[in-house]
Structures are given as structure tokens and as C-alpha cells.
């Protein structure tokens, strides 16, 4: 089986859906958390390290270091799940995206003024704009679990029209 490189936006990072869903389904060998916040928080790093299955490697990167080290990550040829806390963080690494990776939006929590896309994905206008820009070049799958059908949003831009 070809290795998978999955870029997932999930503001819960590693949790039940990720452990029981994505890691098992795609036989993920390495998980990378790309977050400036978590990178600098020893307690969060300890929590996420403790819950990952033993056969998985976990690495933490800041956004800047992730872009800088991506060639190396890419050349490792392992099935890897790369987690981002927000659409904005994913958007900020767009220079490393390519056609042979998978982009998934899984969980973005509800807030005031957010548009409900699915039961786990709530986006504000700026996030819809960023996703639209990414969608011009890459396929984006909106779903919480790998075996689900991705939510198709045909008139995505209409969400932000007044």
C-alpha cells in the first residue's frame, strides 16, 4: 500500500476519533502536531505523548519549523498524520501542500457567528475564504472519520455572500 500523508485540521488534536479512526484505518506510523502553542507547552506535550499507541512516533513542530523540515518529513515515506489546530495554521503551511497528500477538515469547534458545515465543523467567514483558496488547487475532505463520505459543499463561496 502506498504511504499516506494526511493533513488534518482538528482543534482537539489527538483524541478518540484520531486514535480509533485515522491512525488505525491508515496504519499511521507517525503523528506530527504542528502548533506553536503546543510546541511551547510541556504539559500538553506530555498529555498527547501519553495517549498515542505505542507503535506511533509523535513529533511536535512550530509552523515555521514544519515548513523548514518538510522535505525531510516527506522523504521518510512513512504513513504520517499531520495535525493542525486551525484552518489558519493549515493555510500558513500551504507552500508544502501537493497533489499526493490528503487534506481533511475534521473538528473545528462552534463559536458565535460561525457557520455550521457539519456537526463537528463550524467555520467563520475568514476560514471559508482560506479553504476556498486551498480548494482551487487541492481536494479538501470535510469529515470526522476516514470511512465516512466527505461532505460536499458545492456553493461554498455562497456561504460568505451577504
Amino acid at each position, binding site marked *: 500500500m502506498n504511504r499516506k500523508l494526511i493533513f488534518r485540521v482538528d482543534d482537539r488534536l489527538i483524541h478518540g476519533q484520531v486514535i480509533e479512526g485515522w491512525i488505525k484505518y491508515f496504519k499511521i506510523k507517525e503523528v506530527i502536531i504542528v502548533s506553536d502553542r503546543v510546541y511551547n507547552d510541556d504539559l500538553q506535550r506530555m498529555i498527547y505523548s501519553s495517549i498515542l499507541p505505542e507503535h506511533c512516533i509523535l513529533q511536535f513542530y512550530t509552523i515555521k519549523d514544519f515548513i523548514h523540515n518538510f522535505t525531510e518529513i516527506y522523504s521518510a515515506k512513512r504513513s504520517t498524520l499531520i495535525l493542525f489546530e486551525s484552518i489558519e495554521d493549515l493555510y500558513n503551511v500551504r507552500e508544502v501542500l501537493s497533489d499526493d497528500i490528503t487534506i481533511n477538515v475534521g473538528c473545528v*469547534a462552534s463559536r458565535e457567528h460561525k457557520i455550521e458545515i457539519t*456537526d*463537528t465543523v463550524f467555520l467563520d467567514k475568514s476560514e471559508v475564504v482560506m479553504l476556498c483558496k486551498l480548494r482551487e488547487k487541492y481536494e479538501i475532505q470535510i469529515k470526522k472519520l476516514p470511512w465516512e463520505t466527505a461532505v460536499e459543499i458545492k456553493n461554498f463561496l455562497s456561504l460568505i455572500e451577504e
Partner: protein
Amino acid sequence: MVGIILLTHGSLGMELLKTSEMIIGKQNNVDFLSVQSGTSLNDLAGDLDNLVNKYKKDGVLILTDMFGGSPSNIAMAYFDKEHVDIVTGVNLPMLIKTFSMRNDVDNAQNLGRIASQTGKESIILAGDLMNK
């Protein structure tokens, strides 16, 4: 009396509380928080912080449903706080025992030890009973 916070996915915590009260009667000093699909974990962490502070004097035991799940991950932020302990994998026998032992222990750590032990021992494979 050590407080108890049920922190679970969906309405599991609320239902566990209702069910245990059905069996051993109304309980005091207990709260539940639920993580729903669209819940912001930041908001929930704020709610949890308020509850944990409420029990600062007598201590509090946080019971979560599944190690590695979001409710448990939020709770783990308190693992080194002296007046707090956390037990994952809450089940009904564990909760009932925890409620009934609250007056016999003086801190959250001791109550947590009882809870985790009871939770494990409460799981029985029927076939094992027959083979004894």
C-alpha cells in the same frame, strides 16, 4: 467531602449520575460536564477550571469516560494539582462506590485509588464464574 466531576462524551456523565442516584439516592457535591460534537474545548476547559476551584478546600475527583478522549485530555491538565485526582474509564459500579466512600477518605487521591480499583474489579466475564 471530596467533590466529584463527571467529564464525559455526550450525556454519558449525566446519565451515569441519574442512574446511580436511582440506586443509592440523591448526591451532593457532584457536577457533570459534557463534550458534544461542536463543543469548544477552550470553553469547556474554562468551565472545568471553575468547578475545580469550587472544590479547592475539600478536593475533587474528576471521572472521565475514556483515556485518550478529549474529556480525559482536558482533565489531565490537573494531574499534578494537589487537591485534584483523575480516574478514566468511569463505570456505574465505580461511581456508586465512589459516592458511598466519600465520607471515609480525606482526599481526592485516596478516593481515586478506590475508584480505579473498583472500576477494574467490577468487570466480570460470566464464564469465569462458572469455571471456579
